[in-house]
């Protein structure tokens, strides 16, 4: 026994030399990363997820990767109205500055891109040279994309193109002053060129870039730079470095527009075309399908996709019509404005372009759907009708129609609307997920023998005081289908909710506030029960070929206007715009002469790229924001059922909540975060 004890003790003594050098298993180093394709993929997976892509998780004032789709930048552009912004404030855009340090977040990505560009060559021998070149090119693309996000907000920013280290480098070295706006755009162009020359023609995986995506980025960024050079009115020079941190010399406009135009031409070499996979007769369906058909889609260049459990967007929670609201609550948070709807073809309009709601005598026009009008339930890209959404939470007062069924008179004004509008916006009486979306502001019960004169256009509460109208709730903030939205019997014997099942509610209610709902990106196949926070997985299309065609048309127009004659630019622009219009089902232009006004191209952009978070930046680079937003109140369209004849009148008026928008010229450049000025005294603030 004694021996055993001694052996035990001796063993203990021998074993008693724990090694303290135990590396943490969750932390890995370069040799584990840069020697396998999987390591590189993980590197890029850690970069693409942080890229400042303004997707359905981008919120104005809060930044990227947000849960909500409430504070969207499209409330400034006239595309949409935000129910949260309730009419008591003059809203100024702030480009995602408050509460969100995009400045630091972008440099964080740039640092990792720089590190990759510096480090990858050391490990290049592990891969074919094409492969490692492709990856370095991809890192250049990421750097270019990120610098562009900085430049479009701040103008000139410090160009940091190598990995900086502390304390190896002194603070003085790390405090880099701002480069000029032009230098930054030139660097973006150069990085795009590097990416273009180094990268493969096709993306390694869907969700990642290729040489044409890089060139598409160049097309986008150079158009931005050219526009700044041409339209910017306000310059600012860093007094120490004498670099122009705000503004680009007008002399550069031609160079940038040309660079953009050439980049767009280069993208065309990649085999991209507009999506026309659905039967030519179903232009609405084709346009809807464009956003969901990822496998055989020559238009989509670069997407960002989402997966369950990994912070997907909550878009459907906020966009869903009230009548299809999920248990989580919320609905109709971004509602398209009448200003936006008016841009489209196929609607009865007054000479000034506004919707024709009132006749020459000042009486409302009655609209009703002609009995033969049919409407398809635009559901999925392969046109499968999913039937009624399962788990619908709201009782309906219309029968669920089958495919191609006659729709209600609510739809009257939109009978002949341009297909692209119907694919972008849910208009009153149109179908979504197999249901008629019932949008109404009230029921007119008065006598109509001498017509209905236009309601008081200046009143904020035009309906409650009108004895002839049964309005929906008083708008105390709590309306819903059952309470505060009285059901009344109309003369034909049917029972209708005065406010419709999805609004319109004048104030903060759950339904739409504008008379419209957003269809673009609203998932047409998502069952109600799966509409939950961070539960929307529709891919975000960050770049599609239609944008490149629009870039090309615009750059061509600008080059032509700047006296460039090396191409037949106007002819090219004409072809591009008509390609877009044809696919959209809009009226085609007759000749290049129709493009005399740049506004035609810009309007095309507003329609085609609506709700894709691009128009905001267009208005920035066009420098049209300060004119467009000057105590501006967006217009809404209130459909009102006329009990006497079963038809609809549409009351067009400024938003009842009276939210006013103003864009100060100062806002063309965002303020550099104050903390950055402290940590880097060499930075100058935008003026």
């Amino acid at each position: 026994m004694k021996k055993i004890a001694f052996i035990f003790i001796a063993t203990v003594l021998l074993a008693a030399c724990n090694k303290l050098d135990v590396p943490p298993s969750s932390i890995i180093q370069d040799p584990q990363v840069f020697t396998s394709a999987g390591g590189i993929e993980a590197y890029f997976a850690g970069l693409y997820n942080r890229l400042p892509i303004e997707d359905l998780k981008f919120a104005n004032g809060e930044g990227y990767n947000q849960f909500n789709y409430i504070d969207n930048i499209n409330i400034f552009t006239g595309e949409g109205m935000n129910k949260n912004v309730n009419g008591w404030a003059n809203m100024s855009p702030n480009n995602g500055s408050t509460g969100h340090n995009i400045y630091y977040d972008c440099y964080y990505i740039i640092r990792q891109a720089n590190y990759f560009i510096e480090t990858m060559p050391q490990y290049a021998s592990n891969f074919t040279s094409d492969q490692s070149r492709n990856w370095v090119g991809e890192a250049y693309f990421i750097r270019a994309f990120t610098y562009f996000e900085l430049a479009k907000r701040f103008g000139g920013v410090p160009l940091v193109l190598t990995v900086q280290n502390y304390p190896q480098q002194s603070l003085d070295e790390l405090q880099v002053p701002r480069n000029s706006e032009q230098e930054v755009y030139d660097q973006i162009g150069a990085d795009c060129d590097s990416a273009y020359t180094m990268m493969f023609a096709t993306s390694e995986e869907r969700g990642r870039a290729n040489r044409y995506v890089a060139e598409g980025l160049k097309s986008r960024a150079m158009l931005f730079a050219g526009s700044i050079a041409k339209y910017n009115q306000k310059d600012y020079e860093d007094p120490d470095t004498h670099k122009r941190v705000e503004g680009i010399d007008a002399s550069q406009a031609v160079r940038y527009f040309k660079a953009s135009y050439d980049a767009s031409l280069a993208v065309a070499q990649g085999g991209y075309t507009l999506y026309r996979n659905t039967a030519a007769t179903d232009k609405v369906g084709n346009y809807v399908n464009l956003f969901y058909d990822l496998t055989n889609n020559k238009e989509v260049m670069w997407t960002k996709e989402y997966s369950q459990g990994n912070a997907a967007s909550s878009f459907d929670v906020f966009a869903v019509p009230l009548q299809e609201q999920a248990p989580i609550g919320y609905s109709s948070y971004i509602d398209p404005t009448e200003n936006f709807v008016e841009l489209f073809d196929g609607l009865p309009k007054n000479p000034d372009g506004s919707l024709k709601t009132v006749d020459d005598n000042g009486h409302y026009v009655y609209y009703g759907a002609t009995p033969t009008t049919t409407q398809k339930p635009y559901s999925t890209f392969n046109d499968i009708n999913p039937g009624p959404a399962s788990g619908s939470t709201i009782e309906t007062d219309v029968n669920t129609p089958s495919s191609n069924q006659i729709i209600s008179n609510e739809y009257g004004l939109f009978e002949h609307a341009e297909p692209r509008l119907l694919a972008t916006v849910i208009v009153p009486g149109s179908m979504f997920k197999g249901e008629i979306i019932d949008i109404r502001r009230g029921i007119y019960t008065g006598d109509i023998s001498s017509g209905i004169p236009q309601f008081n256009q200046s009143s904020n509460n035009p309906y409650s005081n009108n004895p002839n109208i049964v309005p929906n709730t008083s708008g105390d903030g709590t309306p819903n289908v059952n309470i505060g939205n009285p059901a009344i019997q109309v003369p034909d014997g049917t029972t209708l909710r005065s406010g419709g099942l999805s609004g319109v509610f004048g104030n903060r209610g759950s339904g739409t506030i504008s008379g419209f709902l957003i269809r673009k990106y609203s998932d047409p196949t998502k069952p109600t029960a799966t509409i939950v926070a961070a539960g929307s997985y529709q891919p975000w299309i960050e770049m599609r070929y239609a944008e490149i065609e629009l870039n090309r048309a615009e750059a061509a127009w600008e080059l032509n206007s700047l006296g460039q004659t090396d191409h037949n630019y106007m002819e090219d622009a004409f072809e591009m715009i008509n390609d877009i219009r044809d696919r959209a089902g809009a009226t085609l232009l007759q000749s290049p002469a129709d493009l005399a006004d740049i506004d035609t191209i810009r309007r095309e952009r507003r329609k085609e790229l609506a709700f894709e978070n691009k128009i905001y930046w267009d208005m920035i680079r066009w420098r049209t924001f300060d004119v467009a937003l000057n105590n501006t109140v967006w217009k809404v369209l209130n459909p009102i059922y006329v009990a006497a004849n079963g038809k609809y009148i549409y009351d067009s008026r400024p938003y009842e909540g009276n939210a006013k928008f103003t864009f100060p010229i100062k806002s063309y450049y965002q303020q550099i975060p104050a903390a950055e000025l402290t940590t880097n005294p060499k930075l100058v603030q935008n003026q």
Partner: protein
Amino acid sequence: MKIFYAYGGRQMLPSPFRQLLLAMKLTAVLLMVVFLGVNAKSFSQSVTYQAKNVPLEQAFSAIRQQTGYTFFYNNADIPHARVSVSLEHASLSEALDRVLKGLHLNYSVHGKTIFLSTASAQANAPVAAQPDRNVSGKVTDAKGEALSGVSIRIKGRGTGTTTDNDGHFSLEVPENAVLEISFLGYETQDVSTNNLSVINITLQPSTTSLNQLVVVGYGEQQKATLTGSVAAISGDQIVKTKTENIINTLSGKIPGLRIVQNTAEPGAYNNTFDIRGFSASGSGGAVSSPLIVIDGVPQDQGVLQRLDPNDIASISILKDASAAVYGVQAANGVILVTTKRGKKGQMQISYGVTQMTQVVNKLPKLTNALQYLTLMNEMSMHNINNPVLLFPPSFVTPYQDGTLKSADWTTATMDKTAPEWQHSLTASGGSDKINYFLSFGYLKQDGFFKNNAENYRKYNFRSNIDAQITKRISLSMQLAGISDRQNTPSIADWNIFSTMWRNAPINPIYTDSTKAFYSNPSYNGYGFANSVAEITPGQSGYGLNKSQRFQGGLSLTYDVPYLDGLKAKAFYNYNYNVQDNKNYNKTYTVYNPGANPGDYVPVVTGGNNGQSQVSQYYASGNTGFLQFSLNYTHTFAKIHHVEALALYEQQTSSGNIFQAERYETLNTDQLSAGSAANQIGQGVSVNPSASKSEVGKLHYDYNSKYLVDFTIRRDGSSLFPPSKPYGVFPGVTAAYRISEEPFFKRSKGLSFIDNLKIRGSYGILGDASGTNGYNFVGGYNYPAGNPNPQNLPPGSVFNGEFVNGLGFRGLTNPNITWYTARTTDFGLDADFWNGKLQVTVDYFNRYRTGLLATELLNLPGSVGATLPQENLNSDETRGYDLSVASDQQFGKLFLHLGGNLTYARTRWIKYIKAAQGSDYADWVNNGDVNGRYNDVWFGYGYEGQFQSISQIQDYPVNEGGGNRGNLPGDYIYQDWNQDGYFDGGDIHPVAGTKPVNSQGTATPSAPIINFGFNIGASYDGFDLTALFQGAAGKWISYPIAYSYPLDHNGNSFAKFLNDWHPSDPTANPYDPHTVWVPGYYAYTGTHINASSTGPGGVNNAAYVRLKSLELGYTLPDHLLSKVNIKSLRIFVNGYDLLTITGLKGVDPEHPSDLYGDQYPLNHILSAGLNVTF
């Protein structure tokens, strides 16, 4: 042997006992299966006595000296026998068994007295009547001071008297009577009357409590010679509080140990505790807690919380530099737990059972439909622009006339009571060679949700075996295991409370009378999920959390020859823990009312993303612990007592986590049956770690008068940067026993002081919680983890598949290291009047440096990386703790009174902070500034309620909008800066104790003053224990549901009916002629500013509660001996019976995070018995 059924037949012993014992013998070395229990007569003192052929009385005297128990017997009964015994650490009962062996004597123990009788006669049998005569005298102590209240009993007769205030007594005694003179704190004496009529007696003080052994770091010390601030509690004091969490049973019992119970949720073990406030989180965010050492092995909180209280011999709390011997783990103090071990003697089997009934503690009462509609209408009338009645009379009437019923969601979701059971079975005993302690415990706790949707079961066993292998080698083996399972709803508790409280009573629970169809309470916007469906496993699924914790240790001790007192010991322990969780998050269907009465429209809800999902989580971790030590104890020249220890220990830990989730297309709860689409299967790396330490300890004791302990420890850890892998942590504790000085001993005036000791200690201790982040390692985190689970995914989706991304770690700090704590303590221990009063007072101070913070000098953003954390901040925690105890005896009544109090508060000494725009903003917003207490609560002052419209009109302070919107009853806030406006400039300190973690959110914390007071009494077989516990310097603010009514148009707590409102509910409240009914709260629709004082805001949560009350009765031995039962005690106990607090409607310990929507605390009423065979 007789088997006692537990209680009510619900939990019976599963198999015959005898068979069980047979099985036990077969696996003798391993373990024994038992049922929880308490040995009511576990005599804590042990007897070591060796004698050959001595008179019996001499053996009695030795036992008396060592245990403090006195003997009571009729001389005639005692044979003039001589006995030979050899006892080593024997329990009292063993000692008596051995001493009395073969003498045909019975004994029984009452209080501190052992009654002896012949086997044929009872101890209190009357002796033959003889004429009595008077004896009188005086009892004094050694210094000649008179002692009053001394018990004088006539042996063999059971009658007696006590001395008066002057120490005098007078008594009628029979011839040749022997008087037993006993007095608490003094040696009991027997005096023969021997025809004397005046007898003066001098009593000698006993010193038993001072001789008590206290477990300290790597050793034991006598209480009298302790040099550090160490508080100890024995197992029998712990079991007097009957609740499931061992931490909660300690509440109020140990000075310096601060405990907040956060919930009574079965199996949640959610409480907050620290030693002397030493857990205040560092600015690095990591909340550090005391080191927990169980039987020499560091363990996590989970093990301590799940320990069976019946297994515990003692718990010691090291509060000062006495913890320094634990080095880098010791900065927050150390909790040392020692489990019971076997003692030589006959096998003793104890069985205990406790049947408990939990009663919900302060669950808020909610409004019914009528009340709800009243409040809703008040809220809609509370609109200056458009006061309207949202619900017209036509809507309200059906609830008034009974056509429509109000739904009571709370009653449908929760029960008011829930049962709980504890069983314990222990067996212990031993021979010359082997001692063993074996135990088995079982706990079952049901929860308050209906369907028993939440419940908890725990099984534990322990086997402690000590064997003398050879003359010089002994072996100890300890095995222990705890296995538990917690059944829960699939939805988090707080979520269920949220929905339950917010579902409007106008929304029915079921759509139809058959209760087959759950309604959708959210269909009209006045509710959330159906909480009844949420607690129904068949609807919403379930959660199941299982854990196992195993521990096995083996040590060998070798008595080194040639050097007396030198021992070598090797010890190895292995811990293996498993956590196995499953959640079946099922979709279920609720129904909206349809267009026509009787119609309903199904709505699928629940699940994850609208689909049923099964997720499983499996984590295992293991820790190897190895220790080698040399221990030397010797007394030189009778007065120089030396103990020295040299010790090496090392620890290695590793673990694995695996997690899988699948969606279920069928209604199955099996992962294997799930769909492959969107499945998740992932491992999580658990960073392995290793440490090694060398410890040196020297205790020197000069004649028990001058005492000093030096400790030094060098810790090395893989968590420290390679550039600085080792830290050295020295400590010194010293004490001076003035009472041992000759002048003191000689002085008559000081003779009432038995012991007077002053102590002082200083140590440098560490806290490594800041080094867990590996801030010194660069590279990449992989998988990245989720930097922001809501927003930023940890990777990207490529080709439709999620790809984990790298997490870029950025700049490193190669110098990051542990926090350093310098601990100082000054203390005083004093014992008076032979233990009738025991006082311990300590002042302490802990100064920490090296708390993590990021240097203000940030890098320019264009670097793309931030500075790493560095060891920059420092703080100081100061306070005192005090304990007072008194033992009194009045005849057969033994009384123990004890009280303790701790005050502790922490302030920042150095806090890295960014400057704010103004001095005021700096003061308010830089919550933690140098020199400020870390828990100051900045808020608004509250000055009552407006009583009338005219008061509002005349009110000089603008509360916003020119007070145009204010109504009578609205809260008046203090214009603290007196600028005429109530605004952000009026923020000032309103309270203390709002600790803020690094994320800036309030964390639950202990109050700054904690106290406890306990009373113990025993009389004959009865014993009574009452424990009061309380806290002061505690404020709390509950958000939302507790603070204002009708959040999200949901239901409200009924307390909000007591509000200001117009007497005519249809009257325009803004009309100055409206007549108001005053109330405690403002008119519905007015929110209290939650950071102001006042109703629903920041409120004082000081409280005193009767934490535990136990009444027990031990059956007399003579009844039990016939059935071969050694002892039997029955008891009733109440836990948290009574609380006195100013806080309204909620328990002061109930936490405010998660909106306060949390599982309540409980009262527990229990009854049980302990039987020992």
